[in-house]
Structure formats: C-alpha cells, structure tokens
C-alpha cells in the first residue's frame, strides 16, 4: 500500500480546495441568475424586486454565502478565490435588475445621460441651466466616453451599477487592508459591506464615482500619508500641559511610509483626485475634507496641510465654477436638527403598506449595521495599539446631517460614507477582539449575510414597481419629444419617468408632485398645472405613464381617481387635447391660448 506523505496531501488540499470552492461559487451564481429570465415586466409588487425573484435566485445566493464562509475558514484565505466570490456577490446584488430589465432603472439615470448629451451638443458649460452644470466634471467625462466608444448611453447606464459596486467593494478591501493585516477581517468586511449596502446610489451618477475616489484617497491617507504618534499619548500630553505637551506630541509623529518620494506621489494623487471630486459633485468633497481634517487633528496624517489644500480647492470651485448656483443656494448652513432629520426620515415614511415596509426595512438595516458596528467596536477595543481612525471615519459623515438636509438625502448619503467602517467593525465582531488565525463564527456569518441579503435587496429595489421602466415605456417617452416643440414645458406627474435623456436644455420641466401639496387635491392641482401651462408661451405637455401611476399609489401621494380627475378637468376646462399614442403613455397638450374657469 502506498502511503501519501501528509505534506503532499496538504499541498493538494491547498491547491485544489480553492479551485473547487471557486467552481461551486460560480455555479451558485449561475444558478441564481438562471431563473431571472422568468421574471415578467413590469414589476407590480409593492415589495419591489424581491417579491418576483425566483427560488433559484435565493438558493444560488444562499449557496454563495456558504461557499464564502467555507473559503474564509482556512488559515490563509486564497486572495483570488475571495476576490472571485466577492465579485460574484456584487454581480448578484447589483446586476440583477439589469439582467431582468434591458433598460436602465431610475429617472435620475436618464437625466444624467441627458446632461452628458447636452454638454456634448453645446461643447461648453452653461451654469445657468441648473445645478448639474455647476459641477459638470463627471458628465464631461461621460460625454467623452460616449463620444469615443461604441456603447450606447443606455448600455452604459445599465452596467454602471455593477461597475460601481465592484469598485466600491474592492475599495473597501483596500481601505480595510490599510487598517488590519488580517486577511479574514478584510474579506469579511468587504462581504458585509456588500450585504449591508441598501443605499441606492450605485446608478450612473457623479456621487457614485466620487465615492470611489473617496475610498481611494482614504487609502492613500491611511497608508502612504498616514502618521503614527510616538511617545506619550494625546491624553498624557494634555495632562502634562497643553502648551508644551500637545506640540511635543504632534512633533513626535512618524510617517507610516518611509519612502519620501512615494509620500509625495500619494499627496499629488490625493490632491488630484480631490480636485476631480470638487468639480464633479457638491457633497463628496466635504466628506473627504472632513475625513482628512479629523485624521490630521488626531495626529494620524503626516501632511496636515492637506485638508487646507482640499478646502481651498472646494472654496475656489464654489466661487468660480459653481458661483452661479451658490448665489441662490447656501452650501452649508446649520439647520434645526429636527427639521433636517424630519426631511431625511419622516417625510419619506408614507405610502402603501408594502412601500412602508420597504422604508422601515431600510431604517432597520441601517440600525442593524450600526448595532453590529457598535458591538464590533466594543469587542475590538482591547486590541492594542488602539486606532481611532476607523471610528473617526465612521462617525464623521453623520456630523453633516444637521448641517444640510441635501434635499432629504443627507442621512442616506452619510450612511454610505460611513458604511465601509461599519463593515470593518461588524467584521471584527465575528472575528473577535484579538487577532485570530481562523474564523470560527461561520454559521453565524452565513445566517447574518443571508438575512441581510434579503433585506438589502428589499431596501435597494423595493421601489421597483415605479423605478424600473419597461422598454415600451422608454420608447413611449420618445413620442413625447416628437410632439413637444423645443421650449415647451414638459410636465410629469411624478419623478418616475424615463425623461430628460435628450435635448435637456431645450425644454422646461415641472413635476406635479413637487408643485402641488400632497396628497394631491384634484381641483387645486388642476389649477397649478393649468397656470403653469398658460404661463408657457409654447404651452405644456402633461404625460402619464404606468410607472408614474404606480409611484402615486405606492407613495400614497394621491387617492385613487385623483389623477383621472385632474386630467378630466384639464380637458374640459383648460381645453387640453389628448394626443394619440401607443397606449404606454398618455399625453395631454395644453395650449396657452385656451382659457377656462
């Protein structure tokens, strides 16, 4: 009998096991997506996408979670295998809508295509159009990309979520790698980031790319531009006298990176990426500025003048490229905390029972992520040396919530910027406070990840009934642009419309749910729409689609029949004409010369 040496068995096990797990993980992902062709459009469930996903999707997703925990349960996780599994998870969580629906979801995706198209047509920037043209950077890059590549705008918008998801999750890998040498911690944090990220910001947008840049710059700040205080702690320095102790503590810092040339390169890169953020998005530069400032004040940044540089860049842009917008809109101002919180939370909590459940699950998932992070922080607190950086970077984004409601989205945006560090601490909870060589909490992690996946898919795509559009609906909006002459006022009932993707600056826009009190009152709203149309020299075109009607119903913005009543009043009293269409859209033309009561 031949005895195989144990060492050979170990080698075979180390080499074959990752391949087998990789194959099983890939098969699980294929199983998950295999049944997606059965999903019929439009999605009509109040609970969104999660209610129509076939059982094969859930089996495949659960199997992927199990493969992940098995892959992590070795002394040295295989990096290529972990990267493959994380990428497969991102595909399942971010690409599923695109695999079901061949047109991009969300009105804002179409709007962003229209802005890039407008810049390409005009070959210049007109900041008076709207706020987007005061931060045109991302759209300028998008215009160049669309001009030089054979991809259609819709194709780019369709794949953007999964590309952003991949960049983010590997950004988290890089960030957490800068905080811990434990590969278990790194990959588990990335996994948890993916399953806890319900925040629907991965669509084609400047903020999605700005978040990628934020993660890259944070890595630079943590690694190559970071510093470590040597000698007494800050507490001891303060005790020994603020005047002498603190400067001595400050000057005792040593850089993380010994190579000066690499530090300079990292600094130039950080400033360059920061500059691109400044010209591309309103909010993200302030997140980066805050992060850099806190790291500097805590003695963890070797280049303390970096926040000053970033601040100067932001101020320079606000006073030049964005000066038109700034003239009418203060960037930051201290609001009443209750008012800001209300704008962010309470005003979103209305609608049908299904929609309310989706909103509540989002809040619950955020609370759960914070709770896991808090428990993880507690468990990791005995680790020495203590590192305040992830705590600072977790907490800071929420400090901006009272300062600016950002149209009711600040809490959501802050959660996204905080999430990598929530995932870092949450992973620490499952791995324990001390450095571990293994990973013992496998069943718990698999269960938590599976449960979180279900909730995150509900939270992320819970509005699928009105934020996904059928191909027929998208084509029907073309009809609107065929009949409405440039200069007309286009009136959508709600924001759930695949419009603004063409001739962006040639039309004016109004949305009924923005301009009328909610819930809609038929007579009052009829007067608002009529007056808007009569004030427009070229008249107005009110258009209604299925997605808009679903939005009204699910959000509880109008009682049944109110929209029909508004249309009836516009026809009978304002002389509106119903234009012929293919049925996927209703268009009412309201001419300014038609007068009525």
């Amino acid at each position, binding site marked *: 009998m031949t005895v195989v040496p144990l060492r050979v068995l170990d080698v075979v096990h180390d080499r074959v096991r990752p391949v087998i797990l990789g194959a099983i993980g890939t098969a699980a992902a294929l199983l998950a997506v295999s049944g997606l062709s059965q999903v019929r459009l439009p999605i009509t469930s109040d609970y969104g996408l999660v209610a129509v996903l076939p059982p094969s999707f859930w089996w495949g997703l659960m199997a992927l979670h199990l493969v992940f925990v098995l892959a992590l349960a070795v002394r040295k996780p295989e990096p290529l295998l972990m*990267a493959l599994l994380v990428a497969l998870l991102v595909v399942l969580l971010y690409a599923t809508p695109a695999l079901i629906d061949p047109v991009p979801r969300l009105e804002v995706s179409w709007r962003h295509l229209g802005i890039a198209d407008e*810049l*390409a047509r005009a*070959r*210049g*920037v007109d900041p008076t159009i709207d706020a987007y043209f005061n931060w*045109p*950077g*991302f759209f*300028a*890059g998008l*215009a*160049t*990309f669309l*001009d*030089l*590549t*054979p*991809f259609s705008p819709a194709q780019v918008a369709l794949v953007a979520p999964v590309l952003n998801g991949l*960049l983010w999750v*590997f*950004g988290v*890998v*890089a960030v957490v*790698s800068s905080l811990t040498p434990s590969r278990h911690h790194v990959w588990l944090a990335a996994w948890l980031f993916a399953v806890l990220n319900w925040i629907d910001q991965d669509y084609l947008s400047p903020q999605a*790319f700005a978040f*990628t*840049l934020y*993660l*890259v710059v944070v*890595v630079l700040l943590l*690694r*190559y531009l970071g510093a470590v205080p040597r000698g007494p702690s800050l507490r001891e320095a303060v005790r020994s006298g603020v005047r002498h102790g603190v400067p001595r503590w400050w000057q005792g810092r040593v850089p993380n990176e010994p190579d000066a*040339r*690499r530090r300079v*390169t*990292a600094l130039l*890169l950080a400033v*360059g*990426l920061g*500059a*691109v953020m400044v*010209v*591309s998005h309103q909010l993200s530069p302030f997140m980066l500025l805050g992060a850099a400032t806190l790291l500097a004040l805590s003695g963890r940044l070797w280049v303390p003048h970096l926040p000053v540089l970033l601040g100067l860049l932001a101020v320079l842009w606000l006073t030049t*490229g964005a000066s038109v917008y700034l003239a009418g809109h203060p960037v930051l101002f201290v609001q009443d905390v209750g008012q800001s919180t209300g704008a962010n939370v309470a005003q979103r909590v209305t609608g049908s029972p299904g929609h309310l459940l989706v909103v509540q699950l989002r809040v619950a998932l955020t609370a759960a992520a914070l709770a896991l992070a808090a428990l993880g922080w507690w468990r990791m607190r005995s680790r020495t040396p203590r590192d305040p950086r992830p705590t600072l970077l977790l907490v800071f984004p929420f400090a901006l919530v009272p300062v600016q409601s950002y149209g009711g989205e600040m809490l959501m945006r802050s959660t996204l910027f905080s999430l990598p560090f929530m995932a870092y601490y949450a992973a620490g909870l499952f791995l324990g406070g001390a450095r571990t060589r293994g990973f013992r909490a496998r069943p718990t992690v698999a269960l938590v990840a599976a449960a979180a996946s279900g909730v995150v898919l509900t939270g992320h795509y819970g509005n699928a009934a009105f934020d996904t559009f059928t191909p027929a609906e998208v084509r029907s909006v073309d009809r609107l642009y065929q009949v409405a002459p440039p200069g007309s006022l286009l009136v959508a009932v709600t924001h759930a419309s695949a419009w603004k993707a063409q001739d962006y600056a040639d039309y004016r826009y109004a949305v009924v749910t923005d301009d009328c009190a909610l819930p809609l009152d038929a007579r009052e709203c009829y007067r608002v729409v009529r007056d808007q149309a009569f004030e427009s020299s070229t008249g107005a075109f009110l258009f209604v689609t299925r997605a808009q009607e679903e939005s009204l119903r699910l959000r509880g913005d109008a009682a049944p029949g109110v929209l029909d009543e508004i249309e009836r009043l516009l026809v009978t009293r304002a002389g509106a004409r119903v234009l012929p269409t293919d049925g996927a859209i209703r268009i009412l033309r309201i001419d300014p010369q038609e007068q009525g009561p």
Partner: protein
Amino acid sequence: MSTTSRILVGAALAAPLLLLMPLPAVISGGVALALLGVLPGAALSRALAPDDPVLAVLVTVAGSVAVTIAVSTVLLYLRVWSGPAAAVGVGLITAAIVLGCERGRARDLV
C-alpha cells in the same frame, strides 16, 4: 527609459490617432476603453508603486477616469471640447506622467 514606460508612452500617443481611423467598432471600443479607463491610471499606479494589487487596480481605473474627467472639463470650459480632442489630451497627460516619473527615477539614481 524602461520598456514598460516606452510601451505606456507609445500606447498613450498612438491611441488617439487610432481612434481617428475607421476601425471596426470592437477594436475602436477597445482602444477607447484602454485610453480612457486604463492607461492614465496605469501610469499613476506605476508612479505610486503600491504593493497591494487591489489598490493598483483601483488607482488604474479610478485614476484613468479622473484624468478623463479633468481633461474633458477643461476642454468644455475652453469651449474646444470634442471626443478626439479629449483623447489627445488624455494621451498627452499620460505620456507626461510616465516621462515625469522616469525623470524622477533617473534623478534618484544620480
């Protein structure tokens, strides 16, 4: 100059010219993706020389898109934007990054 640097500079300067030629869509798409999504960031990543492959890939992709954004924005504000003009700008900046790094390395050796 190292071989990799020569390749990067050559590719960065050739890509805009290739995009002006009537190539099949697949090839021109690949060239454009390489120019806008890989080359500038690869130059930046070489300059930084991270030992982490994940960071190297991130800097490559994010850096490339950032350079494309920067060039495109400048051209728009100067009212001289066009896709080919942006491609030339991105190519020139990529070459400048590579040459700048080579010069820095040469100075270090001296």
